[in-house]
């Protein structure tokens, strides 16, 4: 999804000369297409995420729309206060793109595990936070958030995530897309772990349990109506995220349920403290969380 997103960004920037792309010296072999095509709209500022976000704010205060790019926690946690004060409080058109969300760099160690970004970024003022599941969602949400011209966070996986949606799927932030319908349990997924949710629905069907699956790329805004519908039409709701379960996607879904006086059997599949310090490939790390179908069946 990384490659498709940068292609789409390059296309958007070609049509919008006010757009600038900044990197803190990451994106080798990825950003060259943008840099070569639009050198006047590109700057590698060096390894300095705090300054990069401040520079982005200064550009945006001077009429530019800015995308900052880096990996995992570097463009979010490293420069959190610059994002809070300089970008979000001033409501500036700056988008942060982080590649390698979750355990995409799982084997690189804890410094490269991006598992708090969604919850933390969604607390900042004026921001939209998106966690696409596949290249179709990533490209659609990039366009929507660029047109919004306000603070935005787009969390990408890496390269090679499979396409899960039809090419003409209608994707919008804050809008769930139902990919399966079943009567018993609703699986609400955000990000590329949607693929695991779909596999779990197949496994549950083989056991005679009907599972619905929704992709919810919007962490903020979130599709509250779809969450309520899921709770009213199923006996159980399980959220699925490649992120800490405390304060992340599942917690925000639970907030919606409580606010609407809905109390289905509820569970959160995602990262817990037990995984801290473990090192391994993305697939191996996600396997450690446990089996989604088992957890869903356990709620019934």
């Amino acid at each position, binding site marked *: 999804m990384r490659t498709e997103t940068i292609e789409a960004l390059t296309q958007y920037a070609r049509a919008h000369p006010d757009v600038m792309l900044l990197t803190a010296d990451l994106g080798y072999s990825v950003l060259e297409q943008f840099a070569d095509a639009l050198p006047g709209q590109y700057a590698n500022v060096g390894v300095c995420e705090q300054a990069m976000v401040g520079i982005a704010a*200064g550009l945006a205060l001077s*009429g530019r729309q800015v995308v900052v790019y880096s990996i995992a926690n570097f463009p979010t946690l490293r420069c959190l206060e610059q994002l809070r004060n300089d970008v979000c409080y001033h409501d500036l058109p700056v988008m942060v793109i982080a590649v390698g969300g979750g355990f995409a760099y799982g084997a690189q160690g804890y410094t490269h595990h991006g598992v708090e970004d969604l919850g933390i970024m969604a607390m900042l003022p004026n921001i939209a936070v998106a966690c696409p599941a596949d290249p179709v969602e990533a490209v659609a949400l990039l366009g929507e958030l660029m047109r919004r011209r306000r603070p935005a966070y787009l969390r990408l996986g890496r390269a090679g995530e499979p396409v899960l949606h039809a090419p003409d799927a209608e994707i919008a932030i804050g809008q769930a897309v139902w990919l399966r319908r079943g009567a018993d349990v609703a699986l609400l997924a955000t990000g590329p772990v949607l693929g695991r949710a779909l596999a779990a629905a197949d496994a549950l069907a083989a056991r005679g349990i009907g599972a619905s699956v929704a992709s919810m790329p919007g962490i903020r805004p979130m599709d509250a109506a779809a969450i309520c519908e899921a709770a009213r039409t199923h006996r159980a709701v399980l959220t699925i995220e490649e992120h800490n379960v405390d304060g992340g996607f599942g917690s925000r879904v639970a907030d919606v349920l409580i606010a609407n006086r809905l109390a289905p059997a509820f569970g959160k599949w995602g990262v817990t403290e037990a995984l801290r310090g473990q090192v391994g490939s993305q697939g191996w790390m996600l396997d450690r969380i446990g089996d989604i179908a088992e957890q869903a069946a356990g709620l019934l």
Partner: protein
Amino acid sequence: MGNRVTLVNMMDTLGLAKRLRAHALRMTHAARASHIGSCLSSADILAVLHGAVLRADPARPDWPDRDRLVVSKGHAAAIVYAALAEMGFFPIAELATYAADGGRLAGHVTRSVPGVELSTGSLGHGLPVAAGMALAAQRAGASWRAFCVLSDGELDEGSNWEAVQFAQHFRLEGLVAIVDYNKIQSFGTVAEVSELHPLAAKFAAFNWGVHEIDGHDHAALRAALAGPPVAPGRPTVVVAHTVKGKGVSFMEDRLLWHYRNPDAAQLEQALAELDA
């Protein structure tokens, strides 16, 4: 940059600085606010910038070709607002609402106030943003400049040095940093807490053009700030040696007045000294 135009009338900047000091004293007294010492040390820098250097139009705070002023030492809010009111960005009478309940003149510099470019208050944010502004001007081929007033204590923040490094590599000739070098920070003198000397040499080593001047000398400030860059293609720093609490005898060079606000008698004495 040889044909710079200043749209504001060239003012009597010494008179302006005196009025800014008086406003800031009254404001910190009324609001029982801190940081009068930091306001007084930067009074002359702000008076010369607003009165004789910045290309600005108070009737059009968003004029695209204006010079930008980012005050990174956001705790000097009282005197920043005083300067903007004196220049006509909003009524002088509103200064009485400084740090008041429900008012817009927050205790740290806030962008909702006309003429303010950036909300500051957390140190180390202003210079990267000013550098981004200077990059925008450079890419647009525009001649407006980005000025940033910094405290000395805030140079402990690493984000400043990221911007210092960035600005020289990108040859941001339109970026001008002014360090209000009053030698006192929160817990004691700069020498005691985290020595900056030799500050000018540090900037020079980063390939910046450097002016080192008396930050209360208006002619020197005007020459450094309004003149051409020290060297083509280099950002400029004005290391302005100042005195904390400058202009009020019992506040000068005293850490206490980073925190204390003047009571009625002290206010009266301070204002009398300014008029003397």
